[in-house]
Structure formats: C-alpha cells, structure tokens
C-alpha cells in the first residue's frame, strides 16, 4: 500500500487527508442512496404478505447494522487510543459516537413504525429490540461521560474505559436478554421474515447498507476534522492554516 | 537520588513552566517559590506521579518513577493542599489509617505520641470535623512524625498553622534532613530551616 500510515496518524496530516476524502465519500454515499432507494421503491415488487409496508426494511436493516458496527469500531479506536496514547484514534472514537447513536435511534424508530402495522403495537419487549435499546443507552452513556469532562485527554481515556467495558458487556447483555425473552412464553411476536426475499429487495438493502457506510465515514471524517481543529487550535499548523485559508 | 530533567507542564492550553532541571541528594531541602498560579502545586503533583508531564523525565535513583510505581510510593510522603483526613473519624483513627494505607502500620501508643507531639493532646478522640483548621492540618502533619520515608513532598504545609506549630514543623524538617532525608516544599510563608543545604527553584 502506497499510503504511509504512520504519516497520517498525526492530526495535522490526517486533517488534510480527511479534507480530501470527505467529498469523495459524500458523493458515493449520495449516489448509493439514490440507487438503493430507486431499486427499493421502483424496482422491488410488492410483498404479498406485508404489502408496501415492508419497504421500511431498506432503511431499518442498514440502520440496525450500522448501529452495531459503529459501536465496535468506536470501541476499537478508543482502545487503540488508550493503549498507544495516540490522540487521533481517540478523536475518531469521539466522532463516531453521535453517528452511532443516530443510527441506533433510527433502527428503533423505523422498527417501531414497522411494528405498528405488522404487529399492531409500537413496541414489544423482544430480545433484539431490547438489546438495541440498551445499545442506545450505552452510546448515550459514552457521550454523556465525555461531555461531562472538560479536559479532553481525560475525556478520551475515560470514554475508552466505558466503551471497552460496554464491548465486554454487549454479548452478555444480548444473550441474557435473548434468554430472558425465550423463557417467557406469551405475547412474544417474532420478527416475521418475508418468506423468500426477492433478489431485488436484497440488492436494494445491500446498496442502502453500503450507502450508510459511506455516509458514516463521510460524517465521521468531517466531525474528526472539527475535533482536531478544536483541540489543536493553539498549535502552529492551525494558525498557519488560518493564515493561508 | 531525585533527578528532574527538562520538565514541562501544560495546563489547559498554557505551558506553565518548561525546562525545569534539578537534582536532590540526601539531606537537601528544595524550596519551590513562585506567585499564585505559577505551577508549584502542579510540579509537586508531578513529582509524586499523580500528574503526568507532557515532556521531560523524573528519575528516582536512576529509574523513571513511572516504571518504579509502587516501589517509589514506598519512598515518598506527599502532603497536598487537602489534608486527606476523614471528617467523621477521630484524629487518632485518621492518623493510624492513613499511615497504614501508606504501608506503615503504627500502634495506638505511637499514634497518641505523635499527636501529642503535634500539640493535639486532648483532641485525639474528637472527630476531625469539630477541630479547627489549624488542628486539622496538624493531624495531617502528624503523619510525618511516624512515617519512615525518605522524600517528603509538602505543598504549603504551614497553611492555617499558628507560630508554635510553624516552629514545630521547622524542627521536624531539620531533624529529617539531618537523618539524610530529602524535602521538596512549596510555601509562601518564610520558613527558617537553618544549617542545611537549601536549594531554591523559582517559577515564573
């Protein structure tokens, strides 16, 4: 690989690199969103069981995926930051959290809007739903903790600790919730998967998933750039940047 | 024994001090001077290992204090702005417990003797919260009487003390230095520790 990674681990050079890459990812994300939505709404056929309501899937599933991926990625960056004391990794972790929380919220919201027509209720205490809700709490805890700490270095490290503790706990939480739910019988409605997911549906969903990835990368890069500026405002390179810009 | 090189301290976005170099040998007293906010407390906290310098190194007997960690803690006693006494415990309990936490268990009679020496006779079994400011500081200082550490790091030990207690602290320091101890101290009040090597560090 031609890129010298070590070079880009310094905030200053990452700042310019990210500046170049953000538009790239934004455009890709936009194009993929358009394509995915087009296939989802105009090519994919009507589902014979759920009629048109199933079209929520094209945003619901990618959002749910992203919510989980982003937590893992956030925790990894935070861990790297804690272990090797690299400022940039911690900044990226901080930048990921709001996007992750947003996707978690979207998964909950779209799920609820899907649940009402399909199950007749906005919410059930199902394993998947419940653990998604807890994931939202974990994101919010991470952000609240970082927001409560003024000193950025301390905020980075404290955030890393709580993110890592969260990662250890997520599987425990997931399995405990799953088990809790399946031991109770009763009003549990399981997610009804459409019998044979049409190929077009799958394509659209995958494209939308990719679009969400690109979107996340773009937004995170943007936010990381802002955070870099905020933290390095008193360094030479920032003032030079101001002078030239 | 204690060697500080090129130390720099950043607080917020300001560099409080940089290029601090000094070393301290047995029997030497180092007095850190400087106006309010010049970074004395910050420096002392770094010397203890409570704060981490952005640049520079602190070595104890040749090893970086970060690598020594608990071994280093065995060699120092730190007295900060805060007394580290619990309001609801009595003076004697405070003294015994804080000594034990510092790895130096003392028995009751030793504790009583130290408190009495610090002029706290009669207050030993009062909870610290009813004591006056100066008496609380004396309880904290009593730890110095019973500890067996080499390096004392004292942040304004004389605050709230009356003149009798100031004299007491002076004699305590002289005795410790005579026995080959080392002291780093920040204070605004003049203290008179005659006949020992006194180094001064002036922060801007």
């Amino acid at each position, binding site marked *: 690989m031609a890129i010298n990674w070590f070079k880009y681990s310094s905030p200053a050079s990452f700042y310019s690199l990210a500046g170049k890459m953000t538009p790239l990812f934004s455009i890709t994300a936009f194009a993929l969103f358009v394509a995915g939505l087009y296939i989802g*709404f*105009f*090519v994919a*056929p*009507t589902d014979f069981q759920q*009629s*048109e*309501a199933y*079209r*929520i899937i094209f*945003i*619901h599933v990618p*959002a749910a995926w992203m919510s989980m991926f982003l937590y893992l990625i956030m925790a990894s960056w935070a861990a790297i930051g804690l272990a090797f004391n690299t400022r940039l990794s911690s900044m990226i972790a901080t930048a990921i959290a*709001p*996007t992750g929380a*947003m996707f978690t*919220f*979207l998964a909950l*919201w*779209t799920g609820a*809007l*899907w649940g*009402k*027509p399909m199950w007749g209720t906005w919410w059930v205490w199902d394993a998947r739903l419940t653990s998604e809700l807890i994931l939202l709490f974990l994101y919010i805890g991470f952000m609240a903790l970082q927001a409560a700490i003024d000193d950025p270095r301390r905020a980075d490290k404290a955030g890393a600790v709580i993110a890592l503790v969260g990662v250890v706990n997520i599987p425990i939480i997931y399995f405990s919730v799953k088990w809790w739910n399946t031991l109770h019988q009763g009003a549990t409605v399981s997610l009804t998967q459409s019998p044979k997911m049409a190929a077009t549906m799958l394509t659209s969903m995958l494209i939308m998933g990719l679009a969400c990835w690109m*979107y996340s990368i773009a*937004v995170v890069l*943007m*936010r990381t*750039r*802002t955070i870099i*500026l*905020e933290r390095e*405002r*008193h360094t030479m390179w*920032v*003032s030079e940047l*101001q*002078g030239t810009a | 024994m204690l060697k500080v090189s090129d130390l720099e301290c950043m607080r917020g976005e300001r560099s409080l001090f940089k290029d601090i170099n000094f070393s301290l040998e047995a029997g030497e007293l180092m007095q850190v001077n400087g106006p309010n906010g010049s970074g004395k407390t910050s420096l002392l906290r770094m010397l203890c290992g409570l704060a981490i310098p952005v640049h520079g190194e602190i070595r104890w007997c040749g090893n970086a204090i970060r690598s020594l960690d608990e071994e280093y803690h065995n060699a120092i006693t730190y007295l900060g702005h805060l007394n580290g006494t619990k309001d609801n415990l009595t003076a004697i309990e405070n003294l015994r417990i804080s000594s034990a936490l510092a790895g130096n268990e003392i028995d009751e009679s030793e504790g009583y003797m130290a408190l009495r020496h610090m002029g706290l006779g009669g207050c030993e079994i009062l909870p610290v919260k009813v004591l006056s400011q100066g008496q609380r500081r004396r309880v904290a200082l009593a730890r110095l009487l019973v500890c067996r550490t080499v390096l004392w790091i004292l942040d304004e030990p004389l605050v709230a003390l009356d003149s009798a207690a100031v004299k007491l602290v002076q004699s305590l320091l002289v005795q410790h230095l005579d026995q080959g101890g080392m002291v780093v101290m920040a204070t605004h009040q003049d203290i008179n520790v005659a006949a020992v090597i006194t180094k001064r560090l002036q922060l801007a």
Partner: protein
Amino acid sequence: MSWASWSDFFAMGGYGFYVWGSYLVSFFCMAGEIALAFNRKRTLLRQLSLIHKPIQKEQNNETTP
C-alpha cells in the same frame, strides 16, 4: 414499475404514514447531523479567526509591501 400513479406511490398501499414516517425521519436525522457538524465547524472557524487574527495581519503586512 409497480406504481399506477403518484398518489398510489405516496399512499404506499395504505401504509404511507409508516413508510414515509420512517424515511422522512431518517432523512431529517441525517440532514440534521450534517447540519450540526457543519455548524460546529463554522462556529469554530469563526472563533479561530478571532484568535489568529493578529498573526494573519502580520503575515499580510509582510507579504503585501
């Protein structure tokens, strides 16, 4: 293409509220996130230009004779 008309499309087989509710909120969340990110950066740049103004002026003085 499975839609007879635009109104059909918006009705979503009677599930319009739910489908469009999902997509609109998703859209606004993402748009809002981007807007917030931009806004944060803009206010920061404004602050920075205040901080670094003296430097900038000096440079201007040097470069423009």
